[in-house]
């Protein structure tokens, strides 16, 4: 007997909230977290003292005790944190969905608050570098996430003919959507091919515009059971399927020590995601795919089954990622052009698309794939309305 898909459509996101996004915000991460969570609860029409579950990232600096005591939350019966940076974004919602579907909690809040724009760059701190695997990479000058992913990007180009124009297609789609979104950092800053091709290198073959923004900001969402969601004030956005993925013999951002470094966590998460879904990649109207680097998009398009292995670059041709294209991408601007808050803005934009309230609305959008960071232990959500 096939296992029953107990999560399928059992829960729904009924509230989303966010602070402004900026290079520098005056308030603390803690205050920003509180504001985003209150905004999400207000959007849902649910009182703070009804919250009994929290989920966030292990890299989140504001812990559950601080959030709960500042906002006057009720007794918490479920709280969870997911590791691996941006790989944990969708898993925060997945953990809440599992908790609510299994009766461990009734009202869950997931959030991320981060002052990456004005705070320290993690890779600059050499005193806390982890012995494994940094001892095998850092001394040789492979210092930053951009360097680590550029290594895979160069190999993808070599093996499959992926080009800088393909990566530009990704950067352009995100920028075009940000130009429609007043909340986006890059709202009034159009991008041209000339700007892209002449910009400074960060780590060849990746240039400035292949890298995400550095942003201060916070976001949150509220999850309840499907039954309760029907009584909420907003159109429920159901969690149709959810998955985490840590492949066998995977090594994180420096996934260089196995048979096939170009097959990453997306493949593992995707197998689980689609197995429990009534949908296939052909049924997806719009996608919010984690874009700390443009080069993650071709890998993710392959991993989640929108094209075959090696075709992720070519998939971006002919306006495929634009509104009206085969798969409109990151419709608020994503991490590349709206805000980089560890991918949480991709979740909230997925919700807006399925409510019909995006600033770059895909007409009639009924299904949305949201993914967390590829290249690290990851997670993904299939949302529907």
């Amino acid at each position: 007997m096939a296992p029953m898909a107990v999560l399928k459509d059992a829960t729904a996101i009924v509230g989303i909230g966010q602070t402004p996004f900026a290079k520098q915000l005056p308030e603390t991460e803690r205050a920003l977290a509180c504001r985003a969570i209150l905004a999400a609860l207000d959007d849902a029409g649910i009182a703070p003292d009804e919250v009994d579950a929290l989920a966030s990232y292990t890299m989140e600096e504001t812990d559950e005790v601080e959030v709960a005591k500042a906002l006057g939350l009720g007794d918490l019966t479920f709280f969870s944190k997911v590791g691996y940076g941006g790989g944990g974004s969708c898993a925060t919602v997945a953990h809440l969905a599992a908790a609510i579907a299994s009766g461990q909690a009734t009202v869950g809040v997931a959030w991320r608050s981060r002052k990456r724009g004005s705070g320290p760059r993690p890779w600059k701190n050499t005193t806390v570098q982890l012995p494994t695997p940094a001892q095998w990479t850092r001394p040789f000058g492979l210092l930053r996430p951009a360097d680590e992913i550029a290594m895979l990007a160069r190999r993808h180009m070599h093996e499959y003919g992926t080009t800088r124009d393909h990566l530009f297609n990704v950067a352009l789609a995100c920028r075009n959507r940000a130009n429609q979104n007043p909340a986006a950092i890059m709202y009034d800053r159009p991008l041209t091919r000339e700007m892209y091709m002449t910009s400074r290198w960060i780590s060849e073959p990746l240039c400035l515009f292949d890298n995400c923004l550095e942003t201060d900001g916070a976001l949150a969402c509220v999850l309840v059971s499907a039954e309760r969601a029907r009584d909420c004030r907003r159109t429920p956005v159901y969690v149709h399927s959810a998955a985490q993925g840590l492949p066998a013999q995977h090594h994180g951002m420096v996934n260089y020590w196995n048979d096939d470094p170009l097959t990453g966590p997306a493949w593992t998460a995707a197998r689980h995601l689609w197995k429990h879904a009534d949908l296939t990649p052909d049924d997806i109207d719009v996608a919010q795919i984690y874009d700390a680097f443009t080069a993650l998009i071709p890998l993710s398009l392959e991993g989640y089954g929108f094209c075959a292995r090696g075709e992720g670059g070519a998939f971006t041709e002919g306006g495929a990622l634009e509104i009206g294209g085969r798969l409109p991408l990151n419709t608020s601007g994503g991490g590349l052009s709206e805000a980089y808050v560890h991918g949480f803005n991709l979740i909230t934009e997925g919700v807006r698309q399925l409510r019909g309230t995006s600033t770059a609305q895909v007409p009639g959008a009924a299904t949305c794939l949201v993914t967390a960071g590829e290249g690290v232990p990851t997670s993904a959500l299939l949302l529907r309305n």
Partner: protein
Amino acid sequence: MLTPVVDVDGAPFWEYAARGELRVQTCADCDEPRFPPRPCCPHCRSFDHEWRPLSGRGRIWSYVLPHPPLLPDYAEQAPYNVILVELADAPRIRLVGNLVSEAGARLDSVPADRIRIGARVQAVFTPEGLPQWVLERP
């Protein structure tokens, strides 16, 4: 320059490298090499291992050219190369390193247009015991 922050499992690699030897942790029971080093063999779950000498030959699997912003010691040499070397003796293992003109040379000592995926390279060692790579046919 950053020096390796060594852990218990990785220490023998660096001790051999300091003597100019490239060795990789290998299962003493099923003979499978593994990297990075770890306490237990993922193939047969044996805790017994040895450090097997390698030929030091490999091919460039991929490479990057980092540009600033970088830590000062690296920014001073940028753009430099970081290569990923697929080992001839253990193709599943790809070591991160630098392609240099000779042992101990700067990270930018080989012009970028000389670097190509598939090129054969040979391990050499800095006086500090860090492995580097030179082209087999410069």
